[in-house]
C-alpha cells in the first residue's frame, strides 16, 4: 500500500538525475587521465570534477535512495501511510537545496578539495554548508523511520516488526550515528576556518573524525542493497527467505560493528597510536561476518526458489533459476562483485597487506567495485521492482533491463580489475594526469586505457537505465497490485525482543564507538600544538 508515491518517486528521480550527471563526470575523468588523451589541460578541472563526482555519488545519490526506499518500505511493510509526511518533504527539499548549494562553489572551482575535504585545505564555505544541509535533510529521515516503527509497534503489540522495516530502521540508526563524525569535523573544525573565524585546524583530528564516517557510510549505502537481497529477491523469483532471524542478526551486526572500525583507513597515519589501529583492525574483521551470513542466506533462498520450480542436483538447481528475471540477474551479478570486492577488503583490513596498496588505484578499484558495482546494481534492481508500483504503469523492457545490468557488470569489471592491478604496481590515486611516456610508469598505460573503456561502458549502461525508467513513465497505465516483501520459509511464531528492537544494539554501538574512538579523539582535542595553518583553496579566483 503505497500512498505517498509522489514523495518516493521524487527521491528516486532526483537520485538518478544526480547519478547520471556524476556518471558523466566519472567517465570523463577516466578518459582524460588515461593514455587515450593528450594530457595538456588545466589539472584543476580534474580535481573540480572529482569533487563533484565524489560529493554527488557519495553523499547525495545513495542518501536519496535510502530515503526514498525507506519511505516505500515503511508504507508497504507496515501497511499504513507514512507518519510525518510533511517532515519527509522538508527533508527532501533540504537535500535537494543542499546539493545545489554545495555544487555551485564546486563548479566554479572554489572548493576543489575532493569530497573527503582534506583539511588543512579549506575551500568556499558554501560547499561545506551544502553538504551539511544534505546530511541534516537525511537526519529527518533518520528520525522518521524509528518513529514510524514505534507507532506501528504500539498499534500491533503482538506482531514482530516486518523484516524489511526492521532492516530499514537499522540503516537509519547506522547513518544517524555515523554521519556524526563528519558533521563534527565540518561544523567544529572546517566551517569556522572557511568562514574566517579561525585560521588554524588540526588536520590529524579531522582525519580521525572523518574516518568515523568514512567507513560506516559504505554500510549505509549497502543496507538498501541487503534489504533487496533479503526481502525482494526471494519473492521476485517465487521462493522463500531461508531465515528471518539470521537476516535480523546480520543487520544488527552492521549497526554494532560498522562504526568502531574506521581507523583502518588511517593505518598509515602518524597521529593515531598502533594499539587503537589494532583494535579497529579486529572489529574490521568482524564486519565481514554479516556479509558471510548474508551470502549463505541468499544463496539458500535462491535454491529454495529453484527447487520449487523443479530444479535438481547439487548444483543443477542453479540452471533452473529464472535467469530472465532482472532482479535475479542483478542479485547474482551483485554477489559476484561483492565477492571480489570483499576479498579485496579483507586485504585492506590487515595492516601489513594494506601498506602495499594504501592510497593507490587499488583502493579506487576496491570501492568502485563494492559501491558502484555490488551496491548500485541493486539500486537499479530496486527501481525496476518498485517502478510499476510507483507509476502505476508496467515496466516491460525486460530485454533492455538485462542488457543494462550485464553492461553495468561488465563495465565495472573492466574498469576496476585493471585499477586493482595498477594499484599493486604502485600507481597513486587522485592525480589529474600521468606522463605514461616515462619508463617508470609506462607499464601501467595499457591497464589505465582498459579502465577508461570500462568507464564508457558504465556510462552507456547508465543511459540505458534512464531510458528504461522513462519508458516506464510513458507506458499505458496498469495496476501493479500491492507491493509485497518475501515471506520466510519458517515464520517464527515469536521473536525474541532483542531481534525486534534496537535499544540493546544502539547501546553497544555507542559503547563500542566510545571505547574505540574516545581516547584517540580526546587526546588530539587537548593537543593544541598540532593546530596547523589552513591553506585556502581557490581563494585567488
Amino acid at each position: 500500500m503505497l500512498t505517498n508515491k509522489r514523495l518516493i518517486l521524487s527521491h528516486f528521480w532526483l537520485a538518478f538525475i544526480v547519478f547520471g550527471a556524476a556518471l558523466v563526470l566519472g567517465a570523463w575523468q577516466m578518459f582524460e587521465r588515461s593514455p587515450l588523451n593528450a594530457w595538456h589541460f588545466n589539472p584543476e578541472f580534474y580535481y573540480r570534477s572529482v569533487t563533484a563526482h565524489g560529493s554527488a555519488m557519495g553523499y547525495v545519490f545513495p542518501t536519496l535512495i535510502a530515503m526514498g526506499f525507506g519511505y516505500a518500505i515503511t508504507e508497504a511493510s507496515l501497511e499504513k501511510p507514512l507518519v510525518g509526511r510533511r517532515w519527509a518533504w522538508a527533508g527532501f527539499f533540504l537535500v535537494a537545496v543542499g546539493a545545489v548549494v554545495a555544487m555551485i562553489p564546486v563548479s566554479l572551482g572554489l572548493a576543489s578539495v575532493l569530497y573527503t575535504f582534506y583539511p588543512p585545505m579549506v575551500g568556499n564555505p558554501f560547499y561545506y554548508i551544502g553538504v551539511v544541509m544534505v546530511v541534516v535533510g537525511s537526519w529527518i529521515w533518520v528520525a522518521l523511520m524509528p518513529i514510524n516503527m514505534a507507532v506501528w509497534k504500539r498499534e500491533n503489540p503482538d506482531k514482530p516488526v516486518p523484516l524489511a522495516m526492521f532492516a530499514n530502521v537499522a540503516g537509519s540508526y547506522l547513518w544517524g550515528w555515523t554521519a556524526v563524525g563528519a558533521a563534527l569535523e565540518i561544523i567544529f573544525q572546517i566551517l569556522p576556518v572557511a568562514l574566517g573565524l579561525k585560521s588554524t585546524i588540526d588536520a590529524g583530528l579531522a582525519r580521525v573524525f572523518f574516518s568515523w564516517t568514512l567507513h560506516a557510510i559504505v554500510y549505509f549505502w549497502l543496507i538498501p542493497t541487503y534489504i533487496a537481497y533479503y526481502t525482494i529477491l526471494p519473492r521476485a523469483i517465487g521462493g522463500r527467505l531461508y531465515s528471518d532471524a539470521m537476516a535480523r542478526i546480520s543487520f544488527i551486526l552492521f549497526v554494532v560493528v560498522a562504526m568502531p572500525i574506521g581507523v583502518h583507513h588511517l593505518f598509515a597515519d602518524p597521529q593515531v597510536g598502533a594499539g587503537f589501529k589494532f583494535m579497529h583492525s579486529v572489529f574490521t574483521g568482524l564486519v565481514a561476518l554479516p556479509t558471510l551470513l548474508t551470502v549463505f542466506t541468499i544463496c539458500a533462498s535462491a535454491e529454495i526458489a529453484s527447487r520449487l520450480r523443479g530444479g535438481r542436483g547439487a548444483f543443477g538447481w542453479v540452471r533452473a533459476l529464472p535467469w530472465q528475471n532482472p532482479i535475479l540477474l542483478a542479485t547474482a551479478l551483485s554477489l559476484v562483485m561483492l565477492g571480489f570486492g570483499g576479498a579485496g577488503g579483507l586485504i585492506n583490513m590487515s595492516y601489513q597487506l594494506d601498506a602495499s596498496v594504501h592510497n593507490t588505484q587499488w583502493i579506487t578499484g576496491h570501492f568502485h567495485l563494492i559501491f558502484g558495482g555490488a551496491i548500485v546494481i541493486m539500486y537499479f534492481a530496486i527501481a525496476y521492482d518498485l517502478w510499476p508500483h510507483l507509476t502505476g504503469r508496467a515496466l516491460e523492457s525486460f530485454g533492455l533491463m538485462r542488457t543494462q545490468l550485464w553492461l553495468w557488470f561488465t563495465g565495472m569489471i573492466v574498469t576496476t580489475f585493471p585499477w586493482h592491478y595498477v594499484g599493486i604496481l604502485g600507481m597513486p590515486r587522485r592525480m589529474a594526469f600521468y606522463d605514461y611516456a616515462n619508463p617508470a610508469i609506462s607499464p601501467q598505460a595499457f591497464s589505465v586505457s582498459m579502465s577508461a573503456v570500462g568507464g564508457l561502458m558504465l556510462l552507456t549502461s547508465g543511459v540505458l537505465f534512464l531510458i528504461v525508467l522513462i519508458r516506464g513513465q510513458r507506458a499505458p497505465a496498469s495496476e501493479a497490485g500491492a507491493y509485497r516483501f518475501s515471506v520466510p520459509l519458517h515464520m517464527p511464531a515469536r521473536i525474541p525482543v532483542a531481534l525486534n528492537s534496537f535499544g540493546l544494539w544502539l547501546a553497544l554501538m555507542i559503547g563500542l564507538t566510545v571505547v574505540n574512538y574516545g581516547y584517540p579523539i580526546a587526546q588530539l582535542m587537548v593537543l593544541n600544538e598540532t593546530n596547523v595553518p589552513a591553506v585556502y583553496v581557490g581563494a585567488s579566483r
Partner: protein
Amino acid sequence: MSEQKLFSVRNPWFRFSVGVTAAIAVLAALTGLIWLPLAQPDLKLSGIWDAICSAAGVPRASSQGNPIQPDFKTSNVVMTSEMLTRSNQVSIGRGATLAQRCAICHGPQGVSDANSPNLAGQFAAVTYKELNDFKTGARVNVVMSPFPANMSNQDMLDVAAYYAYLPRVPSNQLDVKLAPPPIVVTGAPMRNVPPCGSCHGDIDNKAGSPWLGGQSAVYIKAQLHAFASGTRRNDISQQMRNIARQMTAEEIDQVARYYEAQP
C-alpha cells in the same frame, strides 16, 4: 513480545551480546596496547605503562639529535595562506611614502622597464617576504640588499601593503593570444614540475609565490637560473629550487617569455 526484559542479565541475548562484545574489545585492547608493542624490539619500551602510552598514541615532540646547521642564511619568514590578505588603509598610506625610494628601480607606479621586478599588484605576502629575506641576508642582490637593511618590520608590511594595493599594469610585451607552453599548462610531472599556475596564482595561489604576469622575461629567467644553480636559496625548504633545477634551459626561456606577455 513485551514480557521479556531487554536490558537484563536474565535475557540470554543481552548476556551473550554484551559479553562477547566486551570480551573481544578487552582482548583486542590487551593485544594491541600491551602484547604487540612489547613484541616490537625497535620501540625500546621501559615497561608496561610505556607500552600502553606509546600504543595509545600519547604524543611527544620530535627531538632527534643535533641537526646540521646550514652554512648559508635561510629565510626565517613563517608563511601562511591567510597572511596579509586583508588590506589596511593606514598601512597603504604609510607604504606609499616609504615606497618613494623604491621608485628609481621599481617605477613610481610599481612598474618599470629596468628588468627589476614589477611590484604593482603583487601579493603583499610576497613583497613582505622578499624584503625580509633581503634584510636577513637570505637573499642577496648588490643593488637591493642595502635598502631593507634599516627598515622595521612595520615598514616592510606597509610597503608590501602599498604595492599590493596598486593596480597591475601589463607590460609592453602584452600578448594575451600567446599560447602557453606545455611546461606552464601541465608542467612535467615525472620531473616534479607542477603547472606554474598551481602556485603562482593563475590557477591557485601558494603562500609566498609571486604573481608572474607582466614581469620582465630577463628577470624571470635570471631567477629561475639562480634557483636551479643554487645561487638563490631563500625559498623555504627548497620549494622553488626543486622545480627550477628540473627545468631545461629552453623551458626556462619559454616560461619567461610567456609570463612577460601575460597581464
